């Protein structure tokens, strides 16, 4: 039997642009054309002002560590504990859940507010996940 795989997202028409972006090596967010609000997760209208005029743009991929847990048990399929489940605050404002790679999964190494940059992990031909690693320099 194959190893259990990590939960894989299934895009919807409203989120497809995000997953197309990660596949192309871009972290894509949306900005409201009317009120300039930047928001996440994806939807075809602005949750601040209800305008349907919104644009997709390539985000910087930079952010900082807002909070996290280091999960020991029970572990999700496809994960080897202990592993950090993090919430990253993007420089553009929105926050998103992710994992921190290229970094020990310890409280000492995972300092709140540490600078992070996006790192893409390809799951298969359709899905690439946006993960984050400590920013260089």
């Amino acid at each position, binding site marked *: 039997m194959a190893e259990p795989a*990590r*939960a*894989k*997202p*299934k*895009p*919807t028409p409203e*989120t497809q642009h995000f*997953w197309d972006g990660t596949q192309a090596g871009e972290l894509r967010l949306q900005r409201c054309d009317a009120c300039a609000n930047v928001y*996440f*997760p994806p939807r075809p209208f602005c949750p601040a002002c209800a305008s349907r005029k919104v644009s997709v743009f390539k985000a910087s991929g930079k952010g900082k560590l*807002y*909070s*996290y*847990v*280091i*999960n*020991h*048990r*029970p*572990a*999700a*399929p*496809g*994960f080897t504990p*202990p*592993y950090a*489940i*993090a*919430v990253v605050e993007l420089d553009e404002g929105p*926050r*998103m*859940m*992710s*994992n921190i790679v290229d970094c020990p999964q310890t*409280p000492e190494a995972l300092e*709140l507010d540490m600078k992070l940059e996006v790192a893409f992990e390809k799951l298969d031909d359709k899905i690439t*996940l946006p993960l984050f690693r400590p920013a260089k320099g």
Partner: protein
Amino acid sequence: MRKNQVAVVGAAETTELGVVPNTSQIQLHADAALNAIADAGLKLSDIDGVATAVETPQQIAHYLGITPTWVDGTSVGGCSFMLHVRHAAAAIEAGLCKTVLITHAESGKSMIGKQPRSTPPDSLNGQFESPFGVFGPPSMFPIPVLRYMKTHGITHEQIAMVAVVQREWAARNPRATMKAPITVEDVLNSRMIAYPFRILQCCLVTDGGGALILTSADRAKDFPTKPVYILGTGESVETPMVSQMQSFDSSRAFKIAGPLAFKEAGITHKDVDHLMIYDAFAHLPLYGLGDLGFMPHEETGKFIADGNTRPGGKLPLNTNGGGLSYMHSGMYGMYALQESVRQMRGIAPAQVPNAKISVCHGVGGMFAASGTIIFTNER
């Protein structure tokens, strides 16, 4: 809503709590309902309103043989029952029904007749949280706590004291699952679940249920039980995605539901004799104390660590032992309500002397929803 127009006249938990491997989830609902109906001295045919969560009102009504004229299937997680109390009180006042039965039960441990929770991969949670390794509440609910601790200067030892104090209360409750005393060291050395939380900071996983019966305050005096009046209520929701909370420094849903209830009740924090704050995990009482306005968040950890919420303290909190030590079948809100009612009736195992006002605050999902009910035994 006008205060003190509706009262709890029946309240009971399931005959057994803890590990109940011989009973399915829907029968646990029925067991709690039958106990509450007996408590109120009613017949099933007297019930014309039914509210429940996860199971549907039609399932519960049919199983019990009730023909309702009003139902509420609000299912927003563990505080659903606070919302049911609020909605039932409004419905009774509006004349939509006269006598409402609210049931909760969960075969949370034995998993008999219970559907496992699932997150579809094309839902927003399935796309933007599940792929990063969240796996059940222990991996999600504590995600905000490190930020909360940093912002407000809260220590690991202070949060550990939440579990220590609640075990002191549990020791006074014969039906509590965990009664042996624990220390801060015990908590901080217990098995790691999801850093920073260890097993003694996570709720129990048990089987059980509870039910409430509400009717108008005018009718309540004819019942065999001491009426417990609904003095104030509040509710709100925020987001099913913990990562998308407005802030980890507080809960938006708490900050709306709690003050709404206080305003409706027309009371101040000094009037509160007894307090329940749903504690699925050890940080929730801190969020509750801050967001309900008892004190600034910066003071919540010290307040608990200094012993103010323990037996004999000035603000008795989670006097049944809470979800950490009493029981937690998955949606604990009903057990918090049961303890508030017992305290207002004056029959709690760890009774707060002369308690007249009880605040009962619930959370649903991972800070997704909130409901607050303020009870009194004086009209």
